[in-house]
C-alpha cells in the first residue's frame, strides 16, 4: 500500500497532448465494399396517352394485379409548374393551357426520377387542382423496386426517356377521352362543363396532335382499350415480375459477393462483444435452454438487453464536461452531461424484443420502426414499412436494434435506410444479441464506421429463433 496523497484533485494525469491528425488521415484509408439495396436501379415504367385515355386506371390496374408494396405510381400532375398570379387567374377562367409541355416542370421531374433511380429518397411536390398551386407539403418516395410514371407527357422529354425501362402508350377513342375527362373534371376537380369543353377544343385537342400523339412512335407497347385490355395488363405485370425476380437475384448475388470479399478479414475494432462474465454466461445458458419457461426467458432476456443497452450507451453517446454543485455545502463535482439526443430504431418484428431493456435504460427514448421481413422462399430481406423521427438526422446517436443477425441482409438494408435519411455512419450503433461472423463482416465491410454491440457470436446463418421464443409465436 502506498501512502495517501494529500493533493487535491486536478492532478498531473490531465496532461498535455499534442493534437494528432493521423487518425483523420487513416480514416480515409478504410476499405469500403459497395452494397446496393434491392431498390437501387429502380425500374421506371412510363405510361403516356391522351387526357382521358385511362392512364391512371391502367396504372392502378397494373398495381392491383401485382399487389406488391414495392411498386408505386407517380403522376406527372405533381409536377405542374406553380402558376404566376396572372396565369392563375387564367387557369380559373379555363384560359390556361395545362396540356402543353411548358406547363410541366421537367427539370424537377428529371431530378426526382434520378433520385428514385439511384435508390435515394425523393420528395415529390403535391399539386392542388382546386387552388392551381403547389401545396407546402411534399410526399416522399423511397425504396420502390418499380415505379410507374403516368402523365400525358411521360414519353416527351429526352432525359426522362433515358431513365425509363419500359415505355407504354395508352390509346383510346377521342370521344371516349372527352367524356371521361368531363366526368372527372366536374366530379373530382370542381369544374363546370362549359369550361371543360372550352378547354378541350382550345387546348387539349390541338396539343394532342402536336405533342401527345408523336409519343406513340417511341413507345415499346401501345395499349388500346385501357383496363379492359386484360392481355396487355398481364403482359406488363409479367414483365414487372420478371424484373423483380431479377432484382432479387442480383441482390442475393450481391450479398454473397460481400460475404466472399470479407471472408478472411478479422472482425472490425468497431464491433464490441460483451465481456462474458459469469452472470452473462449463466443468462446465456438459461436463454439457450429449449425447456426454459417463456416467463423466465422474457425475464432473463430483458435483463440481458438492459446490460447490452448500457454497453451501447458507453460506446455511442457523447458527453460534454460540466461542473455541478452537490447538496453538501460548497462542494462541486466535475462530471459529464449528455451531448445530443439518443434515439433508437427497431427492426421489426424481432427488434421489439429489445424495447423493454431499452426503456429501462432510456425511458423516454424516441423509437422509430422499420419492418424488414425475410422472404421465406428466396431468403431475401424486404423492407415493408418504416417510420422514423423527422429530425433523426440531427440526433447525436441512433441505436439500431435487432435480436439476431445471420446473413446480415436486414442489417445492411436498415443501415442504408438510416443513411438515406441523413444519419451519419459513425452515429449509428447496431445493437444485436446474437450474430454470426459472416454477417458482421459483411456489414462492417460496407459500413466500416458504424459501431456494433453484440452479446454472443454464434455460427453463421443461425435460424432466427430468439424473437419466436420471446414473442411466443
Amino acid at each position: 500500500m502506498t501512502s495517501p496523497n494529500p493533493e487535491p484533485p486536478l492532478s498531473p494525469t490531465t496532461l498535455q497532448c499534442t493534437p494528432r491528425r493521423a487518425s483523420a488521415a487513416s480514416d480515409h484509408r478504410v476499405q469500403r465494399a459497395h452494397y446496393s439495396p434491392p431498390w437501387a436501379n429502380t425500374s421506371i415504367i412510363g405510361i403516356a396517352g391522351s387526357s382521358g385515355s385511362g392512364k391512371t386506371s391502367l396504372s392502378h390496374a397494373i398495381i392491383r394485379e401485382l399487389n406488391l408494396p414495392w411498386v408505386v405510381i407517380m403522376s406527372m400532375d405533381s409536377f405542374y409548374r406553380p402558376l404566376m398570379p396572372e396565369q392563375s387567374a387564367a387557369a380559373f377562367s379555363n384560359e390556361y393551357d395545362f396540356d402543353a409541355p411548358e406547363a410541366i416542370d421537367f427539370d424537377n421531374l428529371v431530378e426526382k426520377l434520378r433520385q428514385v433511380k439511384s435508390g435515394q429518397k425523393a420528395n415529390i411536390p403535391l399539386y392542388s387542382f382546386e387552388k392551381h398551386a403547389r401545396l407546402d407539403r411534399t410526399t416522399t418516395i423511397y425504396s420502390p423496386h418499380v415505379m410507374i410514371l403516368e402523365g400525358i407527357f411521360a414519353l416527351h422529354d429526352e432525359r426522362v426517356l433515358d431513365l425509363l425501362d419500359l415505355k407504354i402508350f395508352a390509346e383510346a377513342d377521342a370521344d371516349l377521352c372527352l367524356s371521361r375527362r368531363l366526368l372527372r373534371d366536374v366530379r373530382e376537380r370542381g369544374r363546370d362543363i362549359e369550361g371543360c369543353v372550352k378547354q378541350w377544343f382550345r387546348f387539349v385537342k390541338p396539343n394532342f396532335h402536336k405533342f401527345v400523339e408523336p409519343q406513340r412512335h417511341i413507345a415499346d407497347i401501345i395499349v388500346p382499350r385501357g383496363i379492359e385490355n386484360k392481355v396487355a395488363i398481364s403482359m406488363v405485370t409479367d414483365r414487372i415480375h420478371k424484373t423483380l425476380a431479377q432484382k432479387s437475384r442480383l441482390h442475393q448475388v450481391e450479398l454473397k459477393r460481400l460475404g466472399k470479399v470479407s471472408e478472411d478479414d478479422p472482425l472490425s475494432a468497431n464491433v464490441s462483444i460483451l465481456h462474458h462474465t459469469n452472470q452473462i454466461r449463466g443468462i446465456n445458458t438459461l436463454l439457450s435452454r429449449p425447456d426454459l419457461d417463456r416467463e423466465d426467458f422474457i425475464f432473463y432476456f430483458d435483463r440481458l438487453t438492459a446490460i447490452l443497452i448500457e454497453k451501447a450507451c458507453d460506446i455511442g453517446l457523447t458527453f460534454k464536461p460540466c461542473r455541478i454543485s452537490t447538496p453538501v455545502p460548497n462542494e462541486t463535482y466535475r462530471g459529464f452531461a449528455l451531448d445530443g439526443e439518443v434515439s433508437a430504431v427497431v427492426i421489426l418484428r424481432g427488434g421489439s424484443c429489445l424495447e423493454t431493456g431499452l426503456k429501462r435504460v432510456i425511458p423516454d427514448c424516441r423509437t422509430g420502426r422499420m419492418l424488414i421481413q425475410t422472404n421465406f422462399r428466396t431468403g431475401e430481406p424486404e423492407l415493408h414499412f418504416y417510420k422514423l423521427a423527422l429530425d433523426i438526422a440531427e440526433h447525436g446517436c441512433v441505436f439500431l436494434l435487432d435480436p439476431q443477425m445471420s446473413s446480415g441482409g436486414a442489417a445492411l438494408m436498415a443501415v442504408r435506410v438510416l443513411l438515406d435519411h441523413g444519419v451519419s455512419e459513425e452515429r449509428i450503433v447496431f445493437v444485436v444479441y446474437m450474430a454470426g461472423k459472416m454477417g458482421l463482416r459483411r456489414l462492417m465491410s460496407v459500413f466500416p464506421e458504424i459501431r456494433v454491440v453484440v452479446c454472443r457470436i454464434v455460427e453463421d446463418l443461425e435460424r432466427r429463433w430468439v424473437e419466436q421464443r420471446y414473442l411466443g409465436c
Partner: protein
Amino acid sequence: MSSTHLDRPSGVLQRAPSGHLGPSYKPKEEKPTATVSTEVTHSNVTILPQTPQLIALLTMIRNKATNRADFIFYSNRINRLLVEEALNHLPVLPHTITTPVDRTYNGVKFEGKICGVSIMRAGEAMEQALRECCRSVRIGKILIQRDEETSKPRLFYDKLPEDVSQRWVLLLDPMLATGGSALMAIDVLRSKGVPEEHILFLNLIASPEGAANFAQRYPKVRIVTAFVDQGLNEKNYIVPGLGDFGDRYYTL
C-alpha cells in the same frame, strides 16, 4: 477507529483524480475530462469501470438541481450496474446444454442461494435494482441508528431469513462514509453465522476512509462501489458526495 486513521486512510493512491474518458477508438484529446474515482489498493474493493456513461449518471444524482424523479431513476440505473457486478462474484458451475438450433453451448449454472439485506432506510432504495435482476430474492432488514448520547451507531432492529447463514448476502447501503453502521451490520450477519467471505457490500459512493476501515476490519467482505469519492468533511459527510441519499430518494 482512531481519528488519525481517518485523516490518513491507507491504500489510497490518489484522491479523486482527473481522467480522459471516452471510447478507445477516440484519440485522447477528443475525450473530455472529468473527476473519476479515487484509486484504492485494497484487494477487496471493486470499483465499477469509470465509463463516460457512469460519470454522467453520477453527475445527475450528485447535482442538487436534479429533481426527485430523475434522482430515483438514475440512482436505480447505477444500482442495477452494481447488482450485476456483484452477482459476478458468485460462484458458478460448468453446465453444457443443447440450444434450440441443436448446437452445444458450454455454459454455466448459478451455484448457491442468495439474499439481500438492506440497511434501513437508504439501503431499501437499492432493493428495486436487486429485484430487477433477481425476481423473487429474499430481503432482510437491519435498522441501525446513531445513539444520541454516545453518537455511536446502535442496532435497533433486524429481521433476516432463517437460513441466512447458508446464503450469500448482498448487503445494501448506498453511502459508505466512515463505515460505522455497515461494519455493525456485518457484525450482526456474522453473529447469525454468515461467513465473512459470503458477504458482498453494495454501495454507490464510498469514502477512502470507509474503504480503509473495511479493509482493516473485514478484509474478506467484498465491497462493490460505483465511485470512491475525495474524502469526508468535518461532519463526516462524503465530499463532494450527493447529500443525504435517503432524504433525496424518499422525502425531499
